């Protein structure tokens, strides 16, 4: 099936046809061997970036230095490569130089604190940092970071990404990830945020970057106390893959906390809801046809692009907590407990052949094909689409998308219960707050890779490590850093 132009060509359909023509040239003929993951080339590409750095034209990325480090480090992790202690230390020092004296991290040394590079910095530290002097973890100024986060909070529950900057759900996601990893989530911080997330869902089913709040005076007192209206609260911008991932991951983090918020009296309103049915429909509609090799696009009628392998492909793992998906977590007995999930070696438990009991909602084989056939650059690294060049961003999000197309990762109820049972409360913590922290911890740590649930379109030789569906870190890295900051185990 090729582009359906309906004999009514427009700019969109012409672009689409042009790209389909290029992509079809990348589909390997049936009688020829299928391209595999070019591990050595990708590792070389990543190493070159780490050691030699980036040429002048990357000045445009000067405010994304912590991102460049995170993208590169987590790519190594997904490819199953551990770095030597010296390189790790250099990475830690590079990140820590970006911490701002007032709290939070900037995109580079001396830059203003900003939520997005803060997420990248903390994620990079989760990958290579450690406890103790010089390890990064204990040099994070958590108190100032928390105050920085609070200073960005808006009265509609959203957050600015930095002072005098925009509201954007990427910021909400990044902030919640950091706060969850570092044990900074409080009722005060997240009050109204789930309502903000819900307001981003558009009629298409996906989520937008922001919404417009309206307030009305409640008329009860002399003070100009204004009340946030439930309606209208229009989404600004259309449904988009990147924002949808951020909104959905935020929602999955916030949802289990909502009952705790209302019982502690911080939220009297009825709980916000999202339309799961429309969301699922929108997500599956983002997958391109066979003519697009099964890659994902980020918006209706836009072109496929490898980074949406993660932003949209990776979102499917987040649907189970919303009750979508036929496989129930409790009914899968072959799951290993999280504390005994080492980075997987050459285990024999998975077969090379594609298993037919694939119950995921999207076409996992198709997505793997797009990444393997079209997104890999011959010289190493991965890219949006041919004939573009590779970059760090697309390298990570292609590999992460490949991971989510290969592995099932989901929250195991049993694990959640075990973590809760083994929970050691912090001395002097208020019981309600303790319950709150325990829930954040158990929810985040219960994500487990399903043993035997992996599928490889061209054999296990292309295997990459599983990634945490919320944080996009390895499950081991999430375990280590959270255990540290929650003082567990």
């Amino acid at each position, binding site marked *: 099936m090729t582009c*359906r*132009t*309906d*004999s*009514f060509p*427009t*700019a*969109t*359909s012409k672009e689409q046809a042009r790209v389909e023509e290029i992509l079809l040239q990348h589909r390997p003929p049936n009688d020829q061997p299928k391209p595999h993951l070019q591990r050595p080339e990708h590792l070389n590409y990543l190493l070159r970036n780490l050691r030699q*750095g980036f040429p*002048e034209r990357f*000045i*445009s*990325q*000067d*405010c*994304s230095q912590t991102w460049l480090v995170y993208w*590169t480090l987590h790519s190594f992790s997904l490819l199953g490569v551990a770095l030597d202690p010296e*390189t790790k230390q*250099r*990475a830690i*020092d*590079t990140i820590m*130089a970006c911490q701002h004296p007032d709290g939070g991290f*900037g995109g580079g*040394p*001396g*830059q*203003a604190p900003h939520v997005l590079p803060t997420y990248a910095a903390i994620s990079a530290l989760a990958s290579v940092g450690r406890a103790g002097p010089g390890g990064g973890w204990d040099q994070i100024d958590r108190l100032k970071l928390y105050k920085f986060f609070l200073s960005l909070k*808006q009265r*509609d529950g959203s957050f600015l990404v930095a002072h*005098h*900057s925009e509201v954007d759900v990427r910021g909400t996601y990044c902030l919640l990830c950091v706060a969850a990893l570092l044990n900074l989530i409080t009722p005060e911080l997240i009050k109204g945020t789930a309502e903000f997330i819900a307001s981003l869902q*558009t*009629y*298409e089913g996906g989520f937008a970057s922001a919404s*417009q709040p*309206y307030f*009305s005076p409640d008329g009860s007192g002399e003070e100009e106390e*204004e009340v946030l209206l439930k309606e*209208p609260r*229009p*989404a*600004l*911008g*259309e449904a988009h893959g990147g924002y949808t991932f951020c909104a959905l991951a935020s929602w999955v983090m916030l949802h289990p906390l909502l009952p705790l918020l209302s019982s502690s009296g911080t939220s009297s309103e009825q709980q916000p809801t999202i339309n799961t049915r*429309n969301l*699922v429909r929108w997500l*599956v*509609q983002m*997958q391109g046809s*066979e003519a697009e090799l*099964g890659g994902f696009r980020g*918006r*209706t*009628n836009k072109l496929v692009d490898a980074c949406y392998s993660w932003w949209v492909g990776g979102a499917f793992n987040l649907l189970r907590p919303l009750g979508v998906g*036929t496989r129930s977590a409790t009914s899968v007995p072959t799951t290993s407990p999280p504390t005994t999930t080492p980075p997987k070696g050459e285990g024999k438990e998975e077969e090379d052949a594609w298993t037919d009991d694939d*119950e*995921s*909602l999207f076409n996992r084989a198709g997505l793997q094909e797009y990444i393997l056939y079209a997104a890999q650059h011959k010289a190493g690294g991965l890219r949006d689409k041919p004939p573009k060049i590779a970059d760090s961003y697309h390298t990570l999000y292609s590999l992460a998308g490949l991971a989510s197309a290969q592995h099932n990762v989901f929250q195991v109820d049993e694990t959640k219960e075990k973590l809760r049972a083994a929970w050691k409360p912090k001395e002097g913590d208020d019981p309600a707050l303790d319950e709150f922290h325990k829930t954040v911890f158990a929810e985040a740590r219960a994500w487990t890779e399903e043993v035997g649930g992996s599928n490889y379109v061209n054999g296990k030789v292309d295997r990459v490590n599983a990634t945490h569906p919320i944080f996009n870190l390895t499950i081991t890295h999430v375990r280590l850093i959270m255990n540290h900051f929650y003082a567990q185990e």
Partner: protein
Amino acid sequence: MSSRTSSPDFPPLYAERPEWSDVVPIPQNDEDANPIAPIFYTPEYKDATDYFRGIVKTGEKSKRVLELTESIIRLNPAHYSAWQYRYQTLLSTSSSLSDELTLMDTYATEFLKTYQVWHHRRLLLTLLHQPPSSPSPSSPTPTTTTSPTHTPTTTPPLPLQAELTFITSALRTDAKNYHTWAYRQWVLSHFSRPELWSGEISFVESMLDEDVRNNSAWHHRFFVVFASGVREGDEDREEVRRRELAYTKEKIALAPNNGSAWNYLRGILTHTHTPFATQADFVLPYTLPYPSPSQTEPLDKDVDVKMTDEDKDTDKDEKNSSPENTVVDLENPRPEAGADLPSPLAIEFMADIYEERGGKEDVLSAVELWKSLRDEHDTIRKNYWEFRINDALHPSR
């Protein structure tokens, strides 16, 4: 690395300017630092950012800081710290915000894809038009999310209409730019003035005439018509619904595989609590292999196909002059000749209609349609269609 001395056009480095000699530049990294994944900077960029770090350290906010931040932004428009500091400096020095907005006109065209450009405009506009004029009684009260204390004193604000015109011209260059659309929606909803809203429908239609597959324009239409409250002139919601359905179906007829239009159709129906089944007559012809014959179309399919190319334009002209001659059923326009049918989106819609009706027979009809999508018309989504089949047959999940 470029040798800057070879180009006479470059202004001198800040390090070479006597009027900056009182500032102590601060290099990005300590001397003994050995950062990983470093970026190799041009001398201009290194110079400007070294001086910027020096300025930030002392907290100076003066006119020359505006020059410095502009230098950095021109070299790297994503430098959010420079934007942030520039904004604070504009306020501290009581600079003309209108002049700044004019400067931004060129920036926006040059750096269309950066968040900061659009957000800076938003900050400026917020201040230039503070407090917002009182909205019409039927519209909600807009409020600002920040409350800066600056009061513009010099120039009167530009009419906001000019802002929409500016955005329109930016969208002519990049018709799907996310930030530009989101910004337009902010201008409309934040100021919420009747005269701003009134031109939006015809604006959207001009964008969709340009490219009926532009999803950003469709979303904008939904934003204007349904998501932003009810405004004067649009109180008759039944009429609005009828108008939107007619418009959308006409666009679906032009290009039946256009997902944007189908999504919009779903959006109207869901928002107005209208059953999908009301559209069954409209959808049916789109689920069939080729356009079903209507009174004005030749019955012979082959002839129809042959005539398509030559007759298409004249056909359209005729339609414009006398619609009643060519369109049989105004409520339910048929697929245009040349459409690629059946449209999987129509089949999906039809299956949703059956599922919504909910009778045993209906569900089985829906299942048949999903099977045809799974096995033939939309195979990439086979797992999803399988999921829909299971969900409908065993709704106890």
